[in-house]
């Protein structure tokens, strides 16, 4: 097993595992966010649970951050190594004849997702961490001195999507996520060696996931912008 991450196959296997982990996280993230459309109270309760439960905060959250960092760093490492493998490009390369645009441009869609993630962290994650661990208010209440004021999570979410520019920015971010997933979903299964009689069905499901989840996130942002 020694040195498996030093091999080309070991690196792509690790890349695929981190991708599968992140795709499960995205599904979980979406499942919670969509509650904000149907039931603000349920959204508040689930958000408070996720934001205060020790297992989520101190075990799963660090694993998630490490997973995200690993996926991006390994993505850039692989891109650099792959560029080295062809030092001189073709004068004429008919890329469209043999592969999809998404599969050839994962580094670009991934790069834009990284920029989007940084903005998303500044918008939501950093203020949340500040409130809970710097200010020391883990109550989750709109007014920590008034127990009847209700949870703040839904109000914060709605407030964030008031400006049109932020809604547009998030829509663009989710379009890049869809482009990334359109190749990444099936690619991750191929990398872990899963190419069998279920592959065709899995590819179909992957397309539904790759388009459906980002479209759902776009719907949430547009819904809160239009309804408030």
């Amino acid at each position: 097993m020694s040195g498996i991450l030093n091999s080309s196959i070991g690196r792509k296997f690790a890349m695929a595992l981190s991708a599968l982990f992140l795709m499960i996280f995205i599904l979980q993230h979406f499942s919670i966010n969509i509650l904000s459309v149907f039931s603000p109270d349920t959204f508040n309760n689930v958000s408070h649970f996720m934001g205060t439960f020790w297992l989520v905060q101190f075990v799963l959250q660090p694993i998630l951050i490490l997973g995200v960092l690993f996926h991006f760093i390994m993505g850039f490492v692989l891109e650099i190594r792959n560029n080295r493998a062809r030092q001189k490009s073709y004068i004429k390369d008919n890329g469209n004849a043999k592969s999809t645009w998404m599969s050839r441009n994962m580094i670009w869609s991934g790069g834009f997702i990284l920029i989007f993630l940084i903005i998303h962290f500044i918008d939501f994650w950093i203020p949340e961490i500040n409130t809970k661990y710097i200010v020391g208010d883990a109550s989750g209440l709109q007014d920590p001195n008034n127990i009847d004021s209700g949870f703040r999570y839904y109000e914060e979410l709605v407030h964030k999507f008031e400006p049109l520019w932020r809604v547009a920015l998030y829509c663009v971010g989710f379009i890049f996520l869809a482009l990334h997933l359109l190749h990444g979903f099936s690619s991750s299964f191929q990398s872990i060696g899963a190419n069998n009689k279920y592959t065709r069905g899995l590819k179909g499901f992957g397309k539904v996931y790759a388009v459906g989840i980002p479209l759902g996130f776009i719907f949430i942002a547009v819904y809160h912008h239009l309804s408030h």
Partner: protein
Amino acid sequence: MNLTLKIWRQKNAKTKGKMVDYPIKDVSPDMSFLEMLDVLNGQLITNGDEPVSFDHDCREGICGSCSLQINGEPHGPDRGVTTCQLHMRMFNDGDTIFIEPFRAKAFPVIKDLIVDRSAFDRIQQAGGFISVNTSGNTIDANTIPINKHDADDAFSAATCIGCGACVAACKNASAMLFVGAKVSQYALLPQGEIEATDRVLNMVKQMDVEGFGNCTNTGACEIECPKGISLKNIARLNVEYLKASF
């Protein structure tokens, strides 16, 4: 047909090459691509110019010698054929055709359109074989029962001719379709089980040493492979490598 050929010319491995234009007239649509280049070379020699160097041998699509990146695709625009089996009827009168060598760090250009593909030989030597007693008491292959499905998959993998189109097509110059095919053809058969662990570890190690890129599953190799080698072989390579590593 009258065509304009834009051909990569490079004196040797150390010199810098460039694309050179060659107009060619009265090309028969029934010619193979290599026959068309033969005609061009005949004209160049008649005019006292240096003929274009390119690899070829059997001209029957089975030796894997011919290469050529034609209009941005290895072995040209046709599917399931090598350059020698590509016919000029795939092109139209007045076309401009770009002809370049396969590009990869592991496939350095020797001259014009000829590249050094000995990296594939070294990968094969690292483990692409089985040890068989050939001293007179060789066991007949048919004495070992093998299910039809595995036998067919092993045979399909074994049809890889090692031409390098997979490397040429891949945006990462990855050789994983080639290595996947060579590992698969033995991994699927009982004769290959004994050396399975060393085989896959050594072949992948050599592949990395040669400087091939990493597979990102674009599928370009499968599309361009003249023998239709499936991406399933790369998935099997991944599984075999992980099994051997843990």
